[in-house]
């Protein structure tokens, strides 16, 4: 089954979108025309340069409305959110008690040179986020918040030394792909140290998606607006599943 969807202005499949951009050219009617042609080259139809104006010497700004013929098959899109296991704090704790049977040790940090701790703090700190308590408050989690600007090397060392079950890495700065670089380095190091299978590896940050996390070799990725309980539930369920064969072998 397939379901192709296109941008919607006021009629199904009209493909309407809004664009804005700056061109490094002095404004003139020809600049408007350049913007129109450029949008045409991008593959758009019915291009309307509804605003074009100088914003500085040698720079013009444009607002464009146009139609695209492109569509996307939404049935074919597999982007299962990592937040699928809806459980409250109490439920997670009960689940861990039953299926893991001990406290889960979680370490989190803002890695690389990134110092934006608010996001990872929101997940880990007692206080939590938007009324949802952080992992420190869970009875069945032991959470270690390593703070900001933690090198991937250090995080790996910590994981080894403290028998960490789940690792949470945060990246908020994305300039020049620094987030991808740091995330990749962390997962490669864990692999190299032979720890990858032992830990639930999770990344997060405003530009992170679960899909991206998968591509980077993570178990899950959490993006903007994540609530701690969704992360806790994911860790609990994933860890329980990994432990199951061992439990069964007893």
């Amino acid at each position, binding site marked *: 089954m397939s379901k192709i969807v296109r941008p*919607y*202005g*006021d*009629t199904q499949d009209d493909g*309407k979108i*809004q664009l*804005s951009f700056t061109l490094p050219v002095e404004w003139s009617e020809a600049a408007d025309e350049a913007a129109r042609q450029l949008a045409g080259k991008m593959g758009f139809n019915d291009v*309307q*340069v*509804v*605003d074009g*104006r100088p914003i500085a010497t040698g720079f013009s700004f444009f*607002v464009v*409305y146009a139609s695209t013929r492109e569509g996307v098959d939404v049935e074919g899109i597999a982007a299962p959110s990592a937040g699928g296991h809806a459980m409250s704090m109490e439920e997670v704790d009960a689940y861990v008690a039953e299926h893991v049977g001990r406290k889960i040790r979680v370490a989190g940090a803002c890695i690389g040179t990134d110092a934006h701790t608010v996001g990872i703090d929101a997940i880990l700190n007692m206080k939590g986020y938007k009324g949802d308590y952080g992992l420190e408050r869970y009875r069945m989690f032991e959470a270690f918040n390593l703070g900001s600007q933690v090198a991937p090397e250090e995080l790996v060392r910590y994981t080894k030394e403290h028998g960490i079950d789940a690792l949470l890495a945060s990246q908020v700065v994305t300039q020049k792909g620094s987030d991808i670089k740091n995330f990749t380095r962390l997962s490669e190091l864990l692999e190299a140290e032979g720890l990858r299978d032992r830990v639930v590896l999770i990344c997060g940050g405003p530009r992170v998606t679960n899909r991206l996390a998968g591509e980077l070799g993570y178990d899950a990725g959490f993006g903007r607006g994540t609530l701690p309980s969704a992360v806790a539930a994911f860790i609990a369920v994933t860890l329980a599943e990994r432990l199951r064969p061992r439990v069964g072998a007893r």
Partner: protein
Amino acid sequence: MELNIDRERVARCRELASAIVAPVEAFIAAHSTVSVERAVLRLLGVDGVTPDEVPIPNAIVDSLPDHERRRGVALAFGKALAETGLEPAALGEALGLRRCALEQFTHAPEGAARGALGPHVEAALRRIEAQREERARAMARLPQLPPPLLYVIVASGNIYEDRSAAVAAAEAGAQVIAVIRSTGQSLLDFVPFGPTTEGFGGTYATQANFAIMRAALDEAGERLGRYVMLTNYASGLCMPEIAAMAAIERLDMLLNDSMYGILFRDINMKRTFVDQHFSRMLNAYSGIIINTGEDNYLTTADAVDQAPAVLASQFINEEFAHRAGLPDDQIGLGDAYEINPDLEDSFLYQVAQAQLAREIFPHAALKYMPPTKHMTGDVFKGHLIDAMFNLTSVMTGQSIHLCGMLTEAIHTPFLGDRALALENARYIMSTARHLGDEIVLRPGGTIERRASDVLAASESLLRRVSETGLMAAIQSATFADVSRSPDGGRGFEGVFARADGYFNPFEDALRFAVAS
């Protein structure tokens, strides 16, 4: 927030408006129009079109010889009812299919005609009454959010697309949905029939379209726990008929201005004056809030200059509305945020104008229209101008708030544009919800001085109009810089003097209802 306005001057303005409207009302009382008569038929239950697509109410009224018409279609129709014993709808159909003609039925005495009409008039009024009660119950059960009521338009031309757009807008926070009419419908001397899917810049106002939209919004309202209001346009050549249809289909508001058609659509003034009166009587009885069109003064001329004309028009609209039996809370006087945004302190002028209207008409359901004229393709700037409009509205306690669209200068609203517009209004009105309560306007400041200047200029304008008379004033281009002659313009041929014994059972009933 309060302006220190000259209350005596306000009282004088109201007296002037009354003096202006009184002679027009005398004229109205002595005349009727083809649309008034058609509305009578529609209220009785006549609907549908003839095989050549003429609405049956038009066919019937047009079939009357002049001397019959002058006595009102109800009499002739009532005789036919009495003689045939048919229900009005069935009689209408028979007449529309030319199976019979009204001229066949002239034997029944007037008393019999009135007697035959009686129960149908009763039934029609009960039906309207029932809708009014239904609205009251729904609004009690599904309360609206704090004022102002957020109002958006849908305008795809296709009633079914409009329906999706309307439901989406309601979900996004809209409390009132207006279905914009297809361009120039106001100039048609009939009301189109059935559901329609091809309009131009808007969707035809038809009774079927009203019903489709009402059902969708009722459903959405129940789901959202918030009654969603429906609006359409009356002003034009068919004001009374649209008022009748709206009463029947439970619309909640109608654009209904006593002079819009004259000034902006070149509709004959006598026609408009007579039509607006009967349509407003119906609105009053149906609990429909009228929206007047003062914003139209501002879209073509300078908004700073036109402020006194806007206020004068509000006084006149109020007076006409009162005389048609509309209570203040059903009078949605119009104004708009159309001052050039690049004018320094333009926000202060807007606040002055909006607050002035609020204080002069404290119980009116003030309708505030968004910036349109100065909107450009720069959607980012446009969104900001809309924000300042939203702020003015919540500060000055406007009642009905038309959300401005960031794409105003580009296209009729996209679904996403409407969502952004509603978010804009919701954010601004929440973050500054009680700003108006928090501040006092500096006595003698720019805002207060501006308000007082506008009021004074408005009084002069009203005085001039009262001296020449409203019709002559319109002829000499006192309003909106356009001149219209009393016997010129569209639809004049549809105005006629009532003969002795003229009979309009609804007019009588409504007048009675309003009085009691």
